[in-house]
Each structure stands twice: as C-alpha cells, then as structure tokens.
C-alpha cells in the first residue's frame, strides 16, 4: 500500500508570491488533514476534510490560505501572497474512518517552504 505522497518536497519564495502544495492520500482514506509545522515545533492543524467537505478550517488563515479536495481524494493547499512567517513544513495526513474508533493518522513527508 502506497503511503501519503506530497509535492513539491521543497519550495523557496519571495514574500508576496503564491505557492500550491499537493497531497495524494492513502487509497480509501476518507479523512485528510493539512498541518503546518514550524521549525522545532509540533504540527499545528490548519484544516481537515471528510471526503470533499471541510470539517474544520478554524485555524486556516482565510485571507491568504485556501484548501480544496474537490473529488474527495487528492487535495491542494494554496498560499496567496506568502509571508516570512509562513516559513514551515506543510504536512498532509490521511485516515480511514469507520474502522478502529481511534484510527491512526498517516503522514506524508511534507513540503518544506522557505519564504525570503
């Protein structure tokens, strides 16, 4: 079974530029998460989906960040007008509900973003 895949693995931007991150979850996983992990900190949830529906985006900076999962499979996270404070690793995770009540989240390798 293939794991969660993310691309690109690295991105370097100037402030004000836009960037998109792409995630392909594990096949059959209906729940997908995007996390921001600043250097030397733990992952912080930005948004999560069940199928194509946004369940919680309360921590997503809505003025510059957006996330979609149009067919309930792959997902894209976009940052418009990036700021230096957005420098972090962006992690995607997926999970299958309907099985174990506390099913594990599986993480991708992340995209390391540097905003100059």
């Amino acid at each position, binding site marked *: 079974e293939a794991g*969660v895949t993310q691309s690109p693995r690295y991105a370097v931007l100037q402030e004000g530029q836009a960037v998109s991150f792409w995630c392909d979850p594990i096949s059959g996983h209906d*729940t997908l998460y995007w996390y921001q992990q600043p250097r*030397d*900190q*733990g*992952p*912080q*949830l930005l948004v*999560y989906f069940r199928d194509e529906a946004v*369940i*919680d985006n309360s921590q997503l900076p809505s003025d510059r960040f957006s996330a979609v999962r149009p067919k309930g499979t792959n997902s894209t996270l976009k940052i418009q007008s990036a700021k230096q404070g957005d420098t972090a690793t962006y*992690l995607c*995770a997926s*999970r299958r*509900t309907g099985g174990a*009540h*506390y*099913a*594990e*989240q*599986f*993480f*991708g*390798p*992340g995209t390391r973003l540097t905003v100059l």
Partner: protein
Amino acid sequence: QQQVRQSPQSLTVWEGETAILNCSYENSAFDYFPWYQQFPGEGPALLISILSVSDKKEDGRFTIFFNKREKKLSLHIADSQPGDSATYFCAASWPGGYKVVFGSGTRLLVSP
C-alpha cells in the same frame, strides 16, 4: 494557549539507558493520547498510544504511563538505541480521534 506541554525540549541518554519523556495536558475532555516519532526530513509516524481509561500501555521497549488525575503522562524508552534518536511528539485527541493536538516535541539523542 498550549494545550499539550512536553518536557524536556531535548534529552541525551547513553545507549542501553531508559529515556523518559514527559507530557501534560490542560483539557479534561481529551481521551486519547498518541505518541508520534519523527525523523529529520520525514513526517511523524505513530509509535504507541493510550486511551484515558488505561494507566499503562506497553509495546516492546516503549511504555506509556498515564495519570488522569494529574493530567500527566510519560513515555519510557527502555534499552535506548542510537536508532531511537528522533523527535517525539505527545498528542491528545477529543473523543472520536478526528482532531489531534500536538505538543512541541522532545528531541532525543541516544549516544553509543
């Protein structure tokens, strides 16, 4: 507001020693506590987890001790190996396990 706190930030032990990583939490509604292991350049991976109805969970060299009254838990890594050198995150989840809050991590170095 940091809902899950970890200490120490970093820890160095000798090969063969037991490493003890500490965690505390604020929200009494949390009922599931996974620990994740992360190597540089990789995403976190689930190592071991415990439900709040238990006070201990063992899996090989890894043991979680849980104190619900004090809202504290700890991860003990027995017979530490250099390959255990990684960052360990304590996390907590509300019932259902859909949404997880992570601590800031403990960086463990096991010296041969």
